[in-house]
């Protein structure tokens, strides 16, 4: 294609543009539907499936997908569909709680850091940078090894490595408003510092924190499932998706054992990413213009 044609397609006058809502919309709606379906499946699992999450039928072990077992059975003859449905409970709860707790902790840390300033700010920001210097999963692995494997410990270790981006973002937002007149007014009215931070300053940071959190859920799901896959998170009988993929790791001929729970992780992560992109675009017009 000649450059003139290239340029013509991107000059505002020559470009046919569909409304922004439509370009992001379908993906976001699809993402919402997928997430909604998983939440519904996780809650309604006992009603949706005829099999229990730990129901073993050894005679039916390692059967390929069929009408009776749409996702096949694993090496202990457990119905994989049932376990995938139940598995959402662990994977989703873990990721959501990590994002919520780490997001809140990071927001408060960053808020306090930016508001107080001085050596407190310096110190907290250095700690933030240090934690960010480790790839999340490696530091989380180290912490889980220290604490011992388990879903709770995996969640705790993820929180320990997950908060710094929130702290940085919140700090920036606080710095942007802390010298504005209405904050001074609150000071003049004699509010306590904590009160000012909580009522006058942090609410400003909230929209962008929510954007970051929505974008972040996908990553938290992948990391949480990854820890379980490595045997550091959920332990075997638990139908956590990452742990289920791990149990099918060596069963290359029985592809369904690893494929189905992995597909669940993949669909959920991509759905959350779509939602996150849409939320960001709707809250931050600048990124909408820049991105597409």
């Amino acid at each position, binding site marked *: *294609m*000649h*450059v*003139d044609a*290239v*340029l013509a*397609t*991107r000059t505002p006058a020559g470009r046919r543009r569909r409304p922004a809502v439509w370009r992001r919309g379908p993906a976001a709606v699809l993402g919402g539907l997928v997430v909604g379906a998983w939440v519904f499946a996780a809650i309604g699992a006992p009603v949706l499936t005829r099999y229990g999450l730990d129901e073993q039928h050894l005679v039916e072990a390692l059967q390929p997908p069929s009408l009776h077992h749409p996702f096949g059975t694993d090496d202990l003859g457990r119905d994989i569909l049932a376990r995938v449905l139940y598995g959402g409970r662990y994977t989703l709860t873990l990721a959501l709680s990590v994002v919520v707790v780490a997001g809140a902790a990071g927001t408060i840390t960053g808020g306090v850091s930016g508001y107080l300033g001085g050596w407190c700010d310096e110190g907290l920001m*250095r*700690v933030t*940078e*240090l*934690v960010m*210097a*480790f*790839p*999340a*999963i*490696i*530091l989380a*692995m*180290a*912490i*889980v*090894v*220290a*604490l*011992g494997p388990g879903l709770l410990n995996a969640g705790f270790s993820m929180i320990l490595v997950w908060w710094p981006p929130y702290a940085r973002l919140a700090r920036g937002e606080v710095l942007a408003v802390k010298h504005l007149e209405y904050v001074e007014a609150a000071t003049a009215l004699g509010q306590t510092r904590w009160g000012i931070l909580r009522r006058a300053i942090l609410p400003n940071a909230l929209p962008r924190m929510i954007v970051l959190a929505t974008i972040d859920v*996908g990553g938290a799901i*992948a*990391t949480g*499932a*990854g820890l379980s*896959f*490595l*045997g*550091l998170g959920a332990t075997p009988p638990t139908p956590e998706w*990452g742990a289920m*993929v*791990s149990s*099918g*790791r060596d069963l*290359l*001929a029985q*592809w369904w054992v*690893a*494929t189905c729970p*992995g*597909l669940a*992780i*993949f669909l959920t*992560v*991509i759905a959350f*990413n*779509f939602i996150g992109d849409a939320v960001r675009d709707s809250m931050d017009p600048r990124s909408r213009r*820049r*991105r597409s």
Partner: protein
Amino acid sequence: MGRYIFRRALLAVPTLVGLTIVTFFVSHLLPADMVLVNLGDQAVRSPELVAAFKHRWGLDRPLLVQYLVYAGNLLRGNLGTSIATHRPVLAELALSLPATMELATAAMAGAVAAGVVLGVLAAVLRDSKVDVFARGLSAVGVAIPTFWFAILLLALVYFQLGWAPPPGRLSAGLAPPEPITGMYLVDSLLRGQVDVLVDALRHIVLPAIVIAMVCLGYVTRITRASMIETLAEDYVRTASAKGLTAWAVIVRHALRNSLIPVITIGGTLYAQVMSGTVMAETIYSWPGIGRYAFTSAGSMDFPAVMGVALVVGAVYVAVDLCVDVLVVWANPRVRYR
């Protein structure tokens, strides 16, 4: 430029010290029951054995002393002794590092090359099929769980199709080349062993694709977004108005400036590659530090895991330094910020 590099390198020193403090505190303040894990249920009931174990590993001394000992050991290149193998952690890391470097470099090179080309094509041919494909691929690449993708690829390409060799670095009958760098591809090339080179290449393809896939999404996205912005600049219009070919405008004028954001995500990419290697190496039996971290984590071998975390963190600091220097080199305006 020289002064900038020096100042920036000095800034890395406190970060490195901080890293050791983080690794130290993770290893000492969290309730790691190293004693129980390493002595077993029976021995832990005997107070003498526990005391002897603690004394042997210095666990009975004050924290500050323990940190100073730890830091002094690090300075002398002593990362501690693996509890599982009783060998120095540094020696074990040195053995596995070349394997990871080989794999990570192959993956990064592939991902950056493919990602930049795809990103540029997507930006230039916006809303075309290529663009839709590029956006789809990067959405998938960012979202796909590495460990799952690794297993799928292994099951399909090795098991079903038989196009790739089984996991490992070399086929069973083949002796690795005499080590020069420890990287089989480089060593076999230097020693002129074509059969080993071909075999090593065949083995590296799948795990490299797995790791590359993680980066590909990020590189494509950033290149595309940045290229779209650059293409809207006036100087691009000028270049095209004065009659330069499309190639010259896109590659020589637009792409060069669009690459700066791609450099800045170097640190993020490194982190992605490192988490990718843990999964890819574990599944493809690749004897690098990722698999070392995994096996050590499995046996609760604390010094080993901390060694990996420390080395990975230290390399991150170095990567970060390189990224900053590269950005200044590519965009001199940053220097005077």
